[in-house]
């Protein structure tokens, strides 16, 4: 009976406190400080002593130009592959060089994804891409090694485009390493980043040309969502093996203190 009364008192107290706070907030018109949103940084490397900050737009422009030159048009989901590869590079570099700026000729990237847009993104960063002679003074290493260990020697856009027909979520693995120290980090995109039917739908829409209008629209939504995730989500949300930052212990203590305060006040009243 007593416990029941305390419960009711605590509930009344919470209600009074809530409406009092709501009234204060409404009358004073207080606004929350702007939340810190995730910002897609730039890939910073050194090329023969010169620091370069490579933005995703710069990479996208290069990739679009090269794919257009080779195929005459750009596959609609190209942007998603560029974003994924760019994010993987950002994470890989931060993990291997830990805040240091790597030299371009020290970077080695091994991709398991046989696809032209992601490959061109990695090639641009390592300075190994086509027509890059005037854009770089030195270059790193870029390779495509399939899951079964096969090295893809022909990295032409056409060939990779054909290979990309059968890719799955498991192929989104990239090993970024330092040639000088041998230290490496494997960036693996989480499987649940991709909707279940995504790669089947991609094959149908991009390669099969038999997709209905509805399927085409669905595919556009799906790859756009994935692309938004690559550009806006935190690392732990899209890549395997990274832990979500634990809540501050002060938050837990504050929550316990609030609950205790309500119970104590209810007891006093």
């Amino acid at each position, binding site marked *: 009976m007593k416990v029941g009364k305390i419960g009711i008192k605590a509930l009344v107290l*919470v*209600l009074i406190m*809530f*409406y009092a*706070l*709501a009234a*204060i*907030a*409404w009358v*004073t*018109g*207080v*606004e*929350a*400080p702007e*939340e*810190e949103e995730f910002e897609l940084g730039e890939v910073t490397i050194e090329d023969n002593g010169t620091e370069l900050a490579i933005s995703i737009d710069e990479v996208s422009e290069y990739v679009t130009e090269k794919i257009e030159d080779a195929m005459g048009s750009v596959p609609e989901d190209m942007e998603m592959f560029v974003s994924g590869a760019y994010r993987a590079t950002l994470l890989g570099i931060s993990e291997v060089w830990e805040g240091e700026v790597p030299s371009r000729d020290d970077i080695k990237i091994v991709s398991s994804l046989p696809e032209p847009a992601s490959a061109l993104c990695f090639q641009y960063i390592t300075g190994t891409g086509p027509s890059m002679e005037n854009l770089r003074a030195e270059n790193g290493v870029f390779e495509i090694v399939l899951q079964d260990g096969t090295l893809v020697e022909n990295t032409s856009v056409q060939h990779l485009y054909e290979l990309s027909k059968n890719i799955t979520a498991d192929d989104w693995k990239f090993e970024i390493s330092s040639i000088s120290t041998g230290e490496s980090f494997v960036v693996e995109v989480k499987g649940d980043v991709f909707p279940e039917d995504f790669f089947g739908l991609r094959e149908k829409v991009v390669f099969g040309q038999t997709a209905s209008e509805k399927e085409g629209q669905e595919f556009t939504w799906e790859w756009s969502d994935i692309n938004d995730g690559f550009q806006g989500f935190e690392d732990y949300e899209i890549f395997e093996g990274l832990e979500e*930052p*634990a*809540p*501050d212990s*002060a*938050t837990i203590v*504050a*929550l316990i203190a*609030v609950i205790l305060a309500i119970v104590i006040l209810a007891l006093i009243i």
Partner: protein
Amino acid sequence: MKFKLGSAYFAILGVITLAFGGLEVVTGLPGIEGLSTGALEIPPDLWRGIIIFFAGAFITAGAFKLRDIHGLGMSTFGSIMLWIIAGCDIFTRIMESIPNGAGGLNSLEGFLATYGPPYSPALFLLPFSLVIFYFIKEVEK
């Protein structure tokens, strides 16, 4: 006299609740966006809307026979439905007000701002529905 006034009060409250519930149902339909005016915001949530709509229907139906235990029970039941929805809103705001979303504690401005407008109709209607306790006590006498 008290019960006549009470009947009128709960009939009006019930109709208002019913109307807000209807609006939430309509805004919850696909392709329709939520409504917002001043401090009031109608969230586009179909299921919430259905609960509030029926809460309004029960409050109104019970309001006309408030002296009778069945009528009072119906209005109380409608009020409880409303409290559940408002309670969820209050609980959400309390939980959101303490952490800052980045693993730390919220600032004072951030904490207070969580309690600021816009408010859902359930939050506006909750204090008015608490009058039901007065009539429960009256019937108990």
